[in-house]
């Protein structure tokens, strides 16, 4: 497979994952703005931070009015990371990798782009927002379904999966990074309704508020939330889950290509060093530092994958 094709597949699924995560962030922020208007600005500001676009937003707007934030995140042309801009990049990547995709995956991606483009041709009214966000999640599910249902389990499939999980791990870590102070024991007054709502927002941003309750009942604690998002093996957006998948897919690639790659080794290292610590130890050594370390390690892995599989031409 061409290095460029591998890169396009990797990025296509990163972008699609990003689109879906943005929809979740917006959903969580929107909920807060409806139910607790006093803290809406804070919430929108942290949504913009988690999405990495706070600086671009500040250049354009002075306040965090819901309508402005929503439009900026969904479709503003000044925002390179808007849902529409990222969806366009996903579709361009899919076109570049067209020959490595099944007709079903390509058509699902193309239709997602067409559908979202039509839906977001004009600013989305607040009353239509839940429906629009639902549509984004539904379109992502269609592409994922087509991928799982029709793609040959070859190297191309592995690059698609790697892109999804590297992006997802990054996204979950960013939420934790932006909200870490809410999870610190000194701030967390167990049982206080303020923090319950905040924690619930964190869980909602990763669509885990219900699954968390199935597993923990109503016993919400900061440590339990962090444990769930970082270490839980069955929670599909936890860092540990993502890395299990990343390791698997790198192993398949190594097997397929008959060699051992540096990225496979690095992923293993991240599993052993960072993701094997108990949650108590993580809190003891500092949640914030821990998350920062993880984000940096995840970025290093992405760069290593790019190197190992010749995404670009290296001089020399």
């Amino acid at each position, binding site marked *: 497979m061409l290095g460029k094709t591998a890169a396009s597949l990797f990025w296509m699924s990163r972008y699609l994952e990003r689109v879906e995560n943005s929809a979740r962030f917006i959903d969580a922020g929107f909920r807060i703005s409806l139910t607790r208007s006093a803290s809406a600005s804070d919430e929108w500001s942290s949504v913009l931070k988690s999405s990495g676009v706070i600086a671009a937003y500040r250049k354009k707007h002075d306040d965090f009015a819901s309508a402005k934030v929503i439009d900026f995140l969904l479709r503003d042309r000044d925002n390179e990371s808007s849902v529409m801009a990222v969806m366009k990049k996903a579709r361009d990547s899919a076109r570049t990798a067209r020959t490595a995709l099944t007709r079903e995956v390509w058509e699902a991606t193309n239709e997602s782009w067409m559908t979202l483009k039509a839906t977001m041709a004009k600013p989305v009214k607040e009353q239509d927002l839940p429906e629009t966000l639902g549509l984004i999640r539904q379109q992502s599910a269609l592409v994922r379904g087509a991928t799982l249902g029709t793609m040959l389990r070859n190297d191309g499939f592995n690059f698609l999966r790697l892109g999804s999980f590297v992006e997802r791990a990054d996204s979950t870590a960013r939420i934790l990074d932006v909200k870490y102070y809410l999870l610190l024991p000194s701030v967390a007054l167990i049982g206080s309704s303020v923090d319950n709502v905040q924690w619930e927002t964190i869980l909602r941003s990763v669509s885990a508020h219900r699954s968390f309750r199935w597993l923990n009942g109503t016993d919400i604690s900061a440590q339990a939330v962090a444990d769930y998002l970082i270490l839980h093996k069955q929670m599909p957006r936890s860092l540990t889950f993502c890395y299990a998948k990343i390791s698997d897919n790198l192993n398949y690639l190594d097997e397929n290509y008959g060699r051992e790659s540096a990225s496979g080794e690095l992923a293993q290292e991240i599993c052993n060093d960072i993701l094997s610590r108990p949650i108590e130890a993580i809190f003891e050594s500092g949640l914030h530092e821990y998350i920062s370390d993880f984000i940096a390690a995840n970025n290093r892995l992405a760069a290593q994958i790019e190197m190992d599989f*010749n995404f670009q031409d290296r001089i020399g």
Partner: protein
Amino acid sequence: MLGNGDHVRPAYQDYKDWLDGEDVKRLHRKSAEAEAFFRKTGITFNVYGQDEADERLIPFDVVPRVLSAREWRKLSKGIEQRVRAINAFLYDIYHRQEILRAGRVPIELIANNAAFLPQMIGVNPPGGIYTHIIGTDIVRTGDEEFYVLEDNARTPSGVSYMLENRETMLQMFPELFAKIKVQEVSNYPGQLRRSLAACAPQKCEGKPVVAVLTPGIHNSAYFEHSFLADQMGVELVEGHDLKIVDGRVAMRTTEGYTAIDVLYRRIDDDYLDPLNFEPHSMLGVPGIFDVYRSGGITIANAPGTGIADDKALYSYMPDIVEFYTGEKPLLENVPTWRCSEKDELAYVLEHLEELVVKEVHGSGGYGMLVGPAASKKEVAAFRAKLIDNASNYIAQPTLALSTVPIFTKKGLSPRHVDLRPFVLVSPNGISITPGGLTRVAMTKGSLVVNSSQGGGTKDTWVLEE
């Protein structure tokens, strides 16, 4: 569909019987379905210079264009003869130039022509083949009269539409194909791959590695490039995927560099190699031409083939066919006035309102004047351009092009069409896919069928014997 006089051409009889029994509403619904299908599949083309509507659909018409087996035999014989002559001409023009010595083609026409590549002189392309893939544009003016309009010997496009049009028709009207036996087109990609592989260069070891070279996703024909690579099961590469490794052109894969034997390039000569041609090109591969000359890669079509389909040479095609085949041309050329010649220019200026005037190097229907359809002002403006740079133009009569019905909101209505059959050339012979791409002028009375000018397409049927 109607022949000379008003009888239904025999080839259309079965289709017409079927159509007469069809519900118009169903056809309208099918027509809308086809459009949704094309959009979903991404069978679009990009239009240069139009930012917003950057991807457009080529209108597809549900009424097929039908040719009988006999008509097709006649056409394909004529095309084969012409293609053989073109390859012989190219070999000659880049070697001994006998045709120039014989005075059958004026030397200035070659020497001063941007499509002539002096770098190709003395180069022997693998298998002696210059143009591997050709799309000959044909128009019909009567029951037995076919003319060749253009030879498209460099990088003809449209074959993906031929294939997708048939797929679409099969999906929409399966019962029609059960009733009427139509010759297959779906084996084209397989034939293309075999045909390219048969032209592998000396340095090829083992099974030839074929790849398609595209300028990228923003090119107007990107859909076709990816379609062909996909259907052939070969890699679709861009210039930045390639570099010269150990005297071969190699593509960067996830496991390192792999040599390519045959490159079906869909970029123009100028952009192929910044070291040997246009120095600012970002699309090509520095040094590929040197590898080519040393027998390290086959480039299809060969660099420099454009000299054969240059509009300035078009009027010499009957001589070229005769010179190399020793036979009378089976297909006619459209009478052509060369504006470079004084007497002919005078005639053209006098009859501008009746003629089609084309730029010698233009393509895609840009920069041409269709006299009968142009306003007085347009004719005047064109006259000025023509006088200013006469040798840049040729002129042809507006032919009484045959029409084929299309399905409009108000029912069937006649439109002018042309036909582009696709020809493959390899050392194993010449093969022509039955039918080709029928392009249709969607506006009533219009003669311009180019998709960049709003033209549409139809499925093209060649009936079984």
